[in-house]
């Protein structure tokens, strides 16, 4: 039996960026980039591990907004078009770089990547197969990635977010999720009761969520705790997080790894690259990057060509290093715990592949080395650990998030605090509508009520307040927030005055088509 367990938990999330009203929309590229660079490479890694008979476990949170985009025919069609463009571009690059072996090898690498992505682009089906293999546990996240602690005053808001997520997950993957990734790991004491009622058995919080819980947790973060409701909470391990996330000590900053900011979309001759950037002529990332980080203080223009073999070697080395450190950590913890400790390592999935190009490769090496090269640690999923150790301490975790400073400040500060008076008012109005219109109504009214619920949920995405704070793409976030609030308000007014504009309703239904089975009665309080 292993001396300790490692649960690698990846959270895959993108906000709902679907714009049928425009032929090309820059923000939709977020999805295409993440598919090509993160989701598909990760799935390929997991499939290959299974094919090679490697025993491994990974937990993957697929946010409902992301999942809704993955199953959307329009976005699937656009992604295929996007990929075809990249395949054409990489083909041209193979020709253009034929006398430059360093770059030519990379052009071929990307060409293969893009063709592989096209072949593997049915990722919903792939995820389902991975789930059924028993190696990958799929969990969900709140409906539109709403930062739940800041909606504390309206319980139906939290319930609606949780129920929409669970229902979509079940519909797409054929079973209810056991776990939920709370958006930004934002936990408010009491929300576990709602999770339980909606069928969720566990969630994850940041380290201090457990450590500052009450009563004092006997095993720290190295074993789950139960809330009074019986829902389990798992705490993030600081040490393993730092190894990957830290800008200074983290693996992704290694000089041999691929440089993110040099992209041929910016580097190459404008006329040559023009067909592959945004149709309005704006230079954008293509995903084809030929340089390595080279060194800590190397100017971006002085970067040296990327060498795939060196990077691969480094990913293998870093995987070994990670395992060595976890082994030491576990052996040390064995002195304090009377059971095999659990190390929870949660990360944003998009770190792997998109930002850290070699990330999926690192996971590949990690899983192979854990399975074959040592016997101190073993990978596990949170639900399996609960099955192994069903008896746990009862602790109420503390209000917390994994955001900056550990609480709500990133989503509640000067740039975004003004949104809450409108969000709360809209929640109040949604509850009012749900109470006003009894269950069982049909036709236009039901459609308008359900669409109002969709608009409210889309306005509640933590992504908008997050972007307002980061300062990147702020006009887009402001517009999205305003659009959804505007659509909600118009639907509210029309329901109250009994004058529903069918044309307007159809228009917004076609644009904001998330959660097709949503039921507004979740907001009823009486």
């Amino acid at each position: 039996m292993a001396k300790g367990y490692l649960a690698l938990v990846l959270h895959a999330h993108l906000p709902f960026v679907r714009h049928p009203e425009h032929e090309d929309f820059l923000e939709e590229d977020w999805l295409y980039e993440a598919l090509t660079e993160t989701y598909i490479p990760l799935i390929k890694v997991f499939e290959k591990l299974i094919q090679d008979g490697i025993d491994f476990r990974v937990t993957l949170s697929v946010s409902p907004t992301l999942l809704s985009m993955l199953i959307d025919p329009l976005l699937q069609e656009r992604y295929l078009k996007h990929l075809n463009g990249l395949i054409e571009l990489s083909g041209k690059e193979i020709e253009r770089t034929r006398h430059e072996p360093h770059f030519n090898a990379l052009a071929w690498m990307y060409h293969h990547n893009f063709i592989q992505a096209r072949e593997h682009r049915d990722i919903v089906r792939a995820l389902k197969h991975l789930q059924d293999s028993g190696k990958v546990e799929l969990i969900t996240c709140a409906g539109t990635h709403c930062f739940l602690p800041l909606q504390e005053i309206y319980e139906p808001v939290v319930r609606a977010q949780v129920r929409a997520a669970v229902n979509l997950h079940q519909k797409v993957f054929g079973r209810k999720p056991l776990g939920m990734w709370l958006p930004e790991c934002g936990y408010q004491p009491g929300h576990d009761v709602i999770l339980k009622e909606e069928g969720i058995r566990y969630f994850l919080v940041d380290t201090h969520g457990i450590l500052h819980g009450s009563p004092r947790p006997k095993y720290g973060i190295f074993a789950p705790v139960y809330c009074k409701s019986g829902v389990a909470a798992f705490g993030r391990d600081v040490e393993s997080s730092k190894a990957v996330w830290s800008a200074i000590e983290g693996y992704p900053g290694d000089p041999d790894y691929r440089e993110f900011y040099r992209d041929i979309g910016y580097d190459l001759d404008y006329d040559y690259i023009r067909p592959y950037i945004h149709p309005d002529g704006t230079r954008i990332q293509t995903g084809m990057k030929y340089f390595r980080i080279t060194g800590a203080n190397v100017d971006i223009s002085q970067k040296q060509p990327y060498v795939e073999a060196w990077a691969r070697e480094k990913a293998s080395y870093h995987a070994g290093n990670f395992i060595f450190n976890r082994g030491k950590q576990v052996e040390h913890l064995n002195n304090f715990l009377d059971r095999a400790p659990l190390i929870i390592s949660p990360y944003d999935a998009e770190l792997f592949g998109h930002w850290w190009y070699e990330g999926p490769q690192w996971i590949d090496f990690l899983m192979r080395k854990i399975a074959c090269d040592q016997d101190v640690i073993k990978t596990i999923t949170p639900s399996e650990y609960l099955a192994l150790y069903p008896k746990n301490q009862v602790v109420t975790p503390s209000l917390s998030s994994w955001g900056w400073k550990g609480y709500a400040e990133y989503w509640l500060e000067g740039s975004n605090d003004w949104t809450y008076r409108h969000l709360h008012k809209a929640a109040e109005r949604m509850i009012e509508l749900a109470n006003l219109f009894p269950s069982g109504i049909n036709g236009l009214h039901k459609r308008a009520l359900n669409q109002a619920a969709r608009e409210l949920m889309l306005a509640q995405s933590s992504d908008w307040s997050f972007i307002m704070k980061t300062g990147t793409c702020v006009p887009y976030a402001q517009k999205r927030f305003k659009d959804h609030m505007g659509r909600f308000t118009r639907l509210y007014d029309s329901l109250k005055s009994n004058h529903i504009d069918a044309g307007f309703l159809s228009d917004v239904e076609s644009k904001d088509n998330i959660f097709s089975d949503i039921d507004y009665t979740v907001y009823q309080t009486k």
Partner: protein
Amino acid sequence: MPSKKTLKTKAKKKKPAAKKKTAPKKIKKAAAEKAPVKKRKIKFSASKKTVRSRSKKTIFSAIEPVVLSSEIIQHIASVVQHPISPAHEHFDFSQGYGDNKIILMVRDPYWLFTYWELRQWEKDNARAKAGRGACECLRIYKNDAVCFDIEIGGMANNWYVSVPEAGASYWLEIGFRSADGRFFAAARSNVVKTPLDRMSDVIDEEWMIPDWDALYALSGGFGFGHSSAGAWGFALFSPTSPTGARA
């Protein structure tokens, strides 16, 4: 170092947060005026740097960065990406909803955020009761006892409140304090509890095995291909339908 930038941009939230709290801005204007005016950063800002030091050619300089400042990219992007909404979708946030309420939210163990909207007559009523020399205040209660008052300006409609104790419950009232110290509330907030910023003093241990049978069944079922393939009803990316059209 670009790799750092990589992590800073996206991995922002995971960084250990040890910095000192900055004093929050206290007086805020009405909501609609608060649209941030920060200078925007384009998502990928390499080009700013790449335009420099072009003279230092290396043997690998076959690919030369093109001179295109991020400011220009930003400008183009902001104009093109965000066309104005169709007229039928014009919407402006309400300056007020006609409510008389004050809401309290927790930002962290030592800071709360409150916003409010008062009906004029409720406000006038409280002011009249407080009499001459009345002062508009937020009165903060900790664990149901008066903690302190904050005098607020007439234009403010929200406030960041610094509180003395983590792990305590708070609520507040907005109203007027009379010259002799009596308080007349126009609205009272919800109650919130701040999180602990340290280990709990409670060391009692209680252990639980919740719903063991159910959980075992659920966990044991995991991995045996129980989900019904194709249950969802349409083939994504089927070979005959590369666009993933519904079957």
